[in-house]
């Protein structure tokens, strides 16, 4: 077999073209990001962080020894005030339109050896599609004895300091 060297330039051209194509393909594929089902966890993580941060902001004492806003809205049963504070914390963005984050808040408390739950704030106006992936964040809220608001649930103990659990479901609408 005689190996002739007639097509050497063609070979070099082939190699150069291949390198060029690989480089082009690399640049193109690095420029786009493919959103796989596994990546939805990253959005969920961010949403959970946002909700926990918003609740933490509301659970800051206003001064030394003072109650927090969150304790006040639960103790005085003020879902309107909760919504007015919580919604902007979730939705407001700088230099962009509001983020359409929806939420539903529930309060759980102990009755004897069982747990009772009651809806605290569930803003209307959202029609669920049945495919709204939600995350859940919780926050402990301590209620101190007097004074008690008449809107508090009937079977909630009023004679002692107690701990209730505020649960918030968050999703993007």
């Amino acid at each position, binding site marked *: 077999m*005689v190996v002739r060297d007639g*097509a050497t330039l063609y070979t070099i051209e082939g190699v150069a073209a*291949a390198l060029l194509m*690989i480089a082009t393909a690399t640049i193109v594929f690095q420029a786009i990001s*493919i959103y796989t089902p*596994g*990546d939805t966890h990253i959005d969920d993580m961010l949403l959970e962080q946002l909700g926990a941060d918003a609740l933490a902001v509301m659970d800051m004492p206003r001064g030394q020894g003072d109650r927090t806003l969150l304790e006040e809205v639960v103790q005085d049963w003020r879902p309107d005030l909760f919504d007015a504070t919580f919604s902007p914390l979730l939705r407001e963005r700088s230099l962009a339109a509001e983020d359409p984050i929806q939420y539903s808040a529930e309060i759980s408390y102990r009755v004897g050896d069982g747990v009772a739950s009651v809806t605290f704030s569930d803003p209307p106006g959202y029609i669920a599609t049945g495919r709204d992936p939600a995350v859940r964040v*919780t926050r402990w809220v301590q209620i101190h004895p007097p004074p008690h608001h008449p809107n508090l649930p009937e079977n909630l103990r009023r004679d002692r300091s107690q701990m209730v659990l505020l649960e918030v479901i968050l999703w993007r609408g």
Partner: protein
Amino acid sequence: MAGLNEDGQWIVLMGFLISISLLFLMLIVSQATLVGQTTAEGVLEFPKHEIRDLRGQVISSVGDATFTDDVYRDMRLLSLKRNHAIISVDWRPEPDIPHMMRVMIRYNNGVTVYEETLLV
């Protein structure tokens, strides 16, 4: 076979090499999505907010002396039923330091175990 044209074999060979290297690149890219998913799941599963919230609430309640047995029972039951986690808090006066409480917080949700002892 003497009349077979032998020109261009190198081009064919390069074609094979390139296709095989592309195959390996594809394997690497497909691994990347799996790694991203397991990392995100690991972070999501870790109950960071629950532990920080429990810790903060226990410290503040013990600090202003409103952490009673009833409150402790509230937290234990609600944590078990709603957050699927067992919590245990032990608080007693520190013998050698006046006005100080020794608090022990334990948290276990079956995956993550957390334990802390501190003075409040």
